[in-house]
């Protein structure tokens, strides 16, 4: 301890961890201040919470689709299980638990557990399949979940939707939940287990030959993804105050999937950036009405044709690299500028 190298202030400030903490804290402070002084209206406020929910959904899907490399087209199904579980627990416990945060934590744990169990049930047999067959099977699973929610109307109030859910999803709760989940995913993916999962994506047979238990790790990734999706669902339920099965249809799964693909499969920062863009962009394009979905789907096709790895590929955003690339661009511009002057 005593011998630990004393960092210069500059080194300390550039430490990636410090940069992370500061940035997260300052975003929160900036946003919180804006909200406190009512500079953000309720509409934008709701969109911000929606961004955070989509970040949870896309980073969790990224575990299965990006890091493990499996096609999952039923993520909305897990979200739906989480949302309804949390909503039912939340409604039941509201009279006994006054504190919003406590109510959310209790419901979210329930949501996470049930979604995780569903993930285990689907994952165990499903992971014997590969590629598009797994995709189709998860699609089938998502549709079954939606139909079950609709049909079990004594619990879920069916297609008419479940109303009266306490609307307790404030920005601070959503923000710190999201930070917690993304951090857990980040740490997990950078641990020994995470690297094992990555190696399965790269080469299954080689991974097996170095002693990685493929089925076990696949299942871990799949269950983790569904657990976090369950929490995302819980956040959604408490934000909307109203749930209908149609919110968790195939299109929702596709929407989450698109966020992951555009951000880059295997890049958490990519998922975060594309969550922000894909929540705000359609809202700002509202005046274009029908054109916006046309644009949205064209972007998907064009990305696949010309940049199949997505915005960030498998890379994470890195502050030092970012600085380096900025200075590269600046130098290039400078040279070009000088050249222009010379001519």
């Amino acid at each position, binding site marked *: 301890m005593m011998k630990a190298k004393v960092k210069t202030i500059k080194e300390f400030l550039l430490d990636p961890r410090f940069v992370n903490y500061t940035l997260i804290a300052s975003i929160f402070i900036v946003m919180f201040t804006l909200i406190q002084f009512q500079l953000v209206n309720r509409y934008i406020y709701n969109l911000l919470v929606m961004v955070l929910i989509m970040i949870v959904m896309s980073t969790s899907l990224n575990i299965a689709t990006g890091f493990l490399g499996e096609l999952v087209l039923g993520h909305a199904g897990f979200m739906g299980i989480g949302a309804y579980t949390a909503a039912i627990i939340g409604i039941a416990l509201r009279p006994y638990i006054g504190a919003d945060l406590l109510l959310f934590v209790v419901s979210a744990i329930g949501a996470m557990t049930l979604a995780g169990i569903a993930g285990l049930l689907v994952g165990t047999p499903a992971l014997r399949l590969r590629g598009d067959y797994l995709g189709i099977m998860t699609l089938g699973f998502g549709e079954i979940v939606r139909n079950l929610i609709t049909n079990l109307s004594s619990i879920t109030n069916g297609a008419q939707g479940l109303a009266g859910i306490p*609307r307790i999803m404030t920005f601070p709760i959503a923000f710190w939940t999201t930070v917690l989940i993304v951090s857990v995913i980040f740490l997990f993916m950078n641990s020994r287990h995470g690297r094992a999962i990555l190696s399965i994506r790269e080469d299954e047979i080689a991974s097996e030959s170095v002693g990685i238990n493929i089925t076990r790790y696949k299942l871990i990734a799949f269950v983790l993804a569904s657990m976090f999706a369950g929490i995302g669902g819980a956040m959604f339920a408490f934000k*909307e105050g109203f749930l209908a099965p149609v919110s968790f249809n195939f299109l929702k799964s596709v929407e989450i999937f698109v966020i992951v693909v555009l951000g880059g499969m295997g890049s958490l920062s990519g998922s975060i950036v594309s969550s*922000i863009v894909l929540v705000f962009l359609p809202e700002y394009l509202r005046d274009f009405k029908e054109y916006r979905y046309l644009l949205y789907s064209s972007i998907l096709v064009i990305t696949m044709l010309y940049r199949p790895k997505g915005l960030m590929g498998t890379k994470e955003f890195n502050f030092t690299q970012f600085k380096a690339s900025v200075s590269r661009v600046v130098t290039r511009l400078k040279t070009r500028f000088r050249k222009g002057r010379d001519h």
Partner: protein
Amino acid sequence: MKKLLLIVSVVLLSATLTACGQTDDTVRLGVIGPLTGQYSMYGLAVENGAKLAAKEINAAGGVLDKDIDIIAYDSKGDSTEGVNAYNRLRDQDEIHALIGGTFSSVTLAIKGLAVQDNIPILTPTATNDTVTLDAPNVFRACYSDSYQGSTAAIFANTELNVTNAAVMYNRDDAYSQGLAQAFMDEFDARGLSYDRFEFGAQDDDYSALLTNIKDGSYDAVFLPAYVAEVGAILTQADTLGLDLPFIGGDGWDGIEADYADVANGFYFANHYSKTDEASNVQDFVVNYTAEYGEAPNALAALAYDAVYAMVEAIENADSLEADDLVTALSNLNFLDGVTGPITFDENGDPIKSITIIQVVDGVHEVFAKVEAGDE
């Protein structure tokens, strides 16, 4: 992990800057209805009816020296979309009152939020019984499902001698379910028999159900649903050779446009008839047709009445505050409605008459008129 932070802040800041408050020189009334999709005829009718009323009122000087601004958002007939639309109306447009949702299901989804937010609602068309229950700020301009459903049942029994009915309804839709339930309750009360046939909102193929109905010994089919479904069902019933009379509710309004042949001779309950000769009805029909190039259906008429009723309440209250508006609405006595006079009972439901219409060669013919009070 960090560029996102930068982007977040930029997006958020720019978002905040664009979020400007509303000025207070207009009276903003929100409308929520299915403006696109297979149910769009209902939402567009409500939007058009409301806008026509607003135009006339503005031309006559507006209300409280302000113009009325109708802001209509699309619900696609879907509850979740409806809640989104409501949030936008409340947060971004800061409406003073809401004319809608158009569908019962959507209105029920919005209701809880609107009670919390204390936004006065006068829905023109949401007929489900529970829409106005436990919600002091929610009113409607149409009669309720139970009244309509039991009237249809009485009509079927007394006028058409139906003693064994097939009740075919959409289990995913509050409106359809509500009417079917009221119909069946009335049949139970009268000791008559019926069987239920449920279908889902996503179904296209009704042939299995219709074949089962054909195989039974029913006198008539009660089909409370919206035109898109009714049309498809009647067409399939026709190709299957099912020749029972069908009876419907106000969701049938407009069936004659595309399905006159398969709906010929069938009956449905409605709020008003285009062919009614009262002068305010004919004025409305003429003005509406001049404005939009088509005759108004009952939903347009209800929305038109709802806006006029709301404006009268605003005038009586002499205020745009929610509490004053709710008080004014509950004391309202609005007399010259196209669909009849509107006064609310303790729940916020009006007491109105029902018209039974028969579709004959593509024209609505008034078959019977049931006055309010004499069930």
